[in-house]
Structure formats: structure tokens, C-alpha cells
């Protein structure tokens, strides 16, 4: 029995059995984002790349230890929004941001904040699997190493790989290249790599768009498994995926000027069954996008 190095949250996670994903919503009324503790509070967020505005006036709270999906047609700013959360946009020289993003109450771009420190707590999984051209072990161990992890590295790597439901497939070949794995395995390796630094949030930017349906299903299963321990934000243009894996859904849309705005945010079940905005209804019923 492996005990997850999860002392911070003071709870042990049995790693052996993979519970059946809860793909069907329960009968209880849906939780509302406002009644939950938030991990992110986004206030009047507007962003620009050079002179081109990408997002305008977004305000929403992202609940802690839940899955929040960001949906919307191409070019509506989904990726921009998720990349604001771990300050990956700061790498783009022409990027500019107004408004605030609070992470556990602290402005992530405020004075004294540090993108490097922030990103340790906010893991990210990218659209295309991007393992390092190194061994599977080193892929997972890199994050703990640079962040000064001083415990049992092998155990940490094993735990991360187990959490990402990859351990059984790779335990005999930890020394071989991460790039020798299949696409779906690579993506789970990237998830393991993100989990290895014991983050609090997991950002996923269309994590399944480069995968086949079976690999996609496994990742979705994994998201459901991880959902109660991590705050997960997932960008997807697959509405079925959003309805399957997420607790809450944000619908973004860009109008004539091609600037992304928030149309609707709420419990996924409500948004997909009784959308408040007619544009949401039009989008989820497939009338555009």
C-alpha cells in the first residue's frame, strides 16, 4: 500500500483500486459555485496581445477541489484565460493584463508575487503531450528536483505515476524515454509530472485534443479520480467532455470584435439542462461553434 505524500492535506489516498468514474450526475440539486470555497477569484480580467484584445471584463470564482470546464468556440479566449491562471502569458512580451486574479486571496501579479513560486502550486497539462526527451523517471523527477524536494524521490515518482494511472504500464521501464510512450500514455506522463510537485491546482488546456477516443476516456476517468483532491480547470471544445467531467462550466464567446467575454458560468448540470442565456443554449445544442 502506497501512502500518498499528501501530509499537507492530512489525508491518505489508497492507490490500488481505481474507482468507477462518476460520469452521471446525482439526483441532488447541483452545487452552486457561490456556496463553495474558491481557489481563484477572477475580477474584471481583460487581456491584450499587443493591440489585440483577447478577453474583456471576466469576473468569476473558481471553486476549490472541483472541476471547472471552460468551453466556447475557437478564438474565444479559453486558452488565454487558463494561461492567465499560472501566468504563462507573462512569457509573451506583448501580453498585457488588467483586472486581478486572486489565488487563495492573493493577487497573483501583485507586489511580492513570484511566477515561479506560483507555478509550483498550479500545475499545467498542455494540448499536445510534451514530455521531456528524457527517461520516464527523470520526466517526473525534474519538478521535485528543481523545487528542492528532499524526501524519497523514487517513492514520490511512483506515487505520481500511480495517481496518473500510468504506473502499471511503465514500472518496468522507468529508464526508457518518455517519448517512446503512446500519445495517451505521454499525456498521463505529463499529468504525473505535474502531480509530482504536489500542486493544488491542475490546469488542463484541451488535454485530449491530440488523443484517440480510448486514451481520451482514460484521461477523463483520471480527471474524475483526481477531482476531489485538486482544483481542476479544463479547457475543452468538446461539450460532451465538459458535461462528463466537470462540476462547473464557464461559457466564453467572442462577438463581432473577436474579444472573448463571459456569457454564463454555473453548475455544469444547470448550464447544460437549463441555460440562462440563449447564446449558451444555441452553442450547447450545436447551432453554432
Amino acid at each position: 500500500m502506497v501512502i500518498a505524500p499528501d501530509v499537507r492535506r492530512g489525508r491518505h489516498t489508497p492507490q490500488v483500486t481505481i474507482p468507477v468514474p462518476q460520469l452521471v450526475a446525482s439526483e441532488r440539486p447541483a452545487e452552486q459555485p457561490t456556496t463553495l470555497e474558491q481557489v481563484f477569484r477572477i475580477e474584471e480580467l481583460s487581456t491584450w496581445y499587443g493591440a489585440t484584445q483577447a478577453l474583456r471584463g471576466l469576473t468569476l470564482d473558481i471553486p476549490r477541489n472541483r472541476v471547472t470546464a471552460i468551453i466556447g468556440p475557437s478564438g474565444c479566449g479559453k486558452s488565454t484565460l487558463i494561461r492567465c491562471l499560472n501566468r504563462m502569458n507573462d512569457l509573451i512580451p506583448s501580453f498585457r493584463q488588467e483586472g486581478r486574479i486572486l489565488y487563495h486571496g492573493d493577487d497573483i501579479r501583485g507586489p511580492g508575487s513570484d511566477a515561479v513560486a506560483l507555478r509550483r502550486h498550479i500545475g499545467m497539462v498542455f494540448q499536445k503531450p510534451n514530455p521531456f526527451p528524457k527517461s520516464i523517471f527523470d520526466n517526473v523527477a525534474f519538478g521535485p528536483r528543481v523545487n528542492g524536494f528532499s524526501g524519497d524521490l523514487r517513492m514520490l515518482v511512483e506515487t505520481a505515476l500511480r495517481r496518473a494511472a500510468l504506473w502499471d504500464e511503465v514500472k518496468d521501464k522507468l529508464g526508457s524515454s518518455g517519448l517512446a510512450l503512446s500519445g495517451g500514455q505521454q499525456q498521463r506522463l505529463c499529468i504525473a509530472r505535474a502531480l509530482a510537485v504536489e500542486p493544488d491546482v491542475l490546469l488542463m488546456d484541451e488535454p485530449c485534443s491530440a488523443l484517440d477516443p480510448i486514451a481520451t476516456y482514460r484521461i477523463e476517468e483520471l480527471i474524475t479520480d483526481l477531482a476531489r483532491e485538486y482544483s481542476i480547470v479544463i479547457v475543452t471544445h468538446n461539450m460532451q467532455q465538459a458535461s462528463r467531467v466537470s462540476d462547473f462550466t464557464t461559457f466564453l464567446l467572442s462577438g463581432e470584435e473577436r474579444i472573448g467575454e463571459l456569457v454564463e458560468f454555473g453548475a455544469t448540470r444547470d448550464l447544460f439542462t437549463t441555460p440562462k442565456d440563449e447564446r449558451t443554449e444555441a452553442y450547447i445544442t450545436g447551432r453554432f461553434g
Partner: protein
Amino acid sequence: MTVAPLAVAARWRPRLATRSRSGRAFLLLCYAATAIGILSLVVLLADTAIKGAPQLSWEFLTSYPSRFAARSGVLAAAVGTLYLALIVIVVSFPLGIATAIYLEEYAKPGLLNRIVQTNIGNLAGVPSIIYGMLGLAVFVRALSLQRSLLAGGLTIAVLVLPIVIINAQEAIRAVPSSLRHASLALGATRWETVWHHVLPAALPGVLTGTILALSRAIGEAAPIILISSIAFIAFLPDGLLDSFTILPIQIFIWVSKPQEAFHAIAASAILVLLALLLTLNAIAIFVRDRSRRSAQW
């Protein structure tokens, strides 16, 4: 629903024969161009080998130059060339890579960056004699290194620096940004990202640039003519501040003598220079291939 009628056959003239003839003609042209290059190289090498090979002997490799062609050797020049190559690598490799990293990973795009970039490009094309004058003014005179091995080595290092930088930049640029993002998203700093991921991935390309730079460095005579004292060097350099000579200079000296015998040993010296060049490149290629394998693409 009506479909647009197919084109009438009379409107098409495929001229297949003419087109395939011109294709063959072009192929022939390419063959000819390649053959001219290879042939002239073969002729040059064969001519040198025929002239130079008879004088090649252990004595030739281990003797100092002499007034008599038969007793002359390339020891001082060969060792000088090796030392020079070492200094060039030690100086230009780290400087060049550091510059490339700065320009690619840190420098903000803008006017200043563009000016620097253009200038590096231009510097790669500056005639080498200009570098000799720079070396003479800066290293020999201003820094009073005299006509030493160090002054020569630094001059050639500056000469090949643009080549190293440009190649390293291209190699660094070729590293996919997804790799950088993966590392940064884990909470690695920019430097950790460069050191652990960008540089290892770029190393093979960087080493290719070094091979090119080294070949250039070893073959240069012009700048060293200004810097070394071309005199009769019948000793090995003792330290960095000793005077020295190199193979291209030795060849230049022997070729400019009137006696036929010296022309022959100049050809032998060219063969030694070629062997040295191939050996150094082989080492660099070996290192490059190893670094390619260690990155598990």
C-alpha cells in the same frame, strides 16, 4: 443538378516529351555542377598528396624547421596549431553559447536586439585580416600580450565567435517551445529551463557550429601573419605568452621560398594540416553524436 462539362480535349496540350526533356536537362546540369566541385577537390587533393606524401615521415613530424628542406619538419607549427585550436575552443565556445542564450532566451525583441543581431551577422563576413589588425591593436599592443600564443588564440577566437553564436542561436531556436513551457509550468526558473532542457536539446546543433568554427580557425593564416612573428620558430611554446607559429604560416613561408624542395614539404605540411583538421572534427562529431543519443528523442 448539372455538372460542369469536362474540358474539351483540344484545349489541352500536355507536351509531355518537351517537359520530360527539360527535366532531364536540368538533372544533367545538377550532375555537372556537382561533378565540377568534386573533381576540382579531387585534383587539388591528389596533386598535394602526390607532391607531399614522399616527404611524410616520423622525422618530418618531429623536427623543427631548418634552412635545409630535407631536414625541416612541422613539429613547432603542428603543436602551435593544436594549442591555438584549444584556446579558440575554450574561449569561443562558452562565450558564443552564452551570447546565443542571451539573445534567444532573455533579450526582449526590439531595435537594440535587431542591431546586435545584424552586427553579428555582418561580423561573420568581415575579412579575417581585419581581425588580425584588431588582435594586433588590442591583444598584442593594448593588453601587451606581445606576439604570443594567447594573443593569436584570442584573435582567432574573436574571429570565429560570430559563427559559433549564429549556429548556437539556430540550434536554440529549433528547440520546441513546448519543452520550455513544460519546464516553466513545473515551477522551474528560466535558467533551470535553459540548463536542463534547452541546452541539452540544442547541444548537437551547437557542436555542429563548433566544428565549422574550428575548421575555420585552423585554416586561418591572414590574421596570424600580423600577430605571430613569422620568424624561425625552432621550439615549442612553453606557455600562453610564448611566441608560436602555426601550420598555415609554415606552409606560407615554405611556399614563398624559391627552392622546389621547400614547395614539396609545403605540400606535406598541408597533408598534416588536413589530418589534424579531420581528427579534431572527428572528435567533435563523436561528442555530438553522443549528446544526440543521451537526449532520448
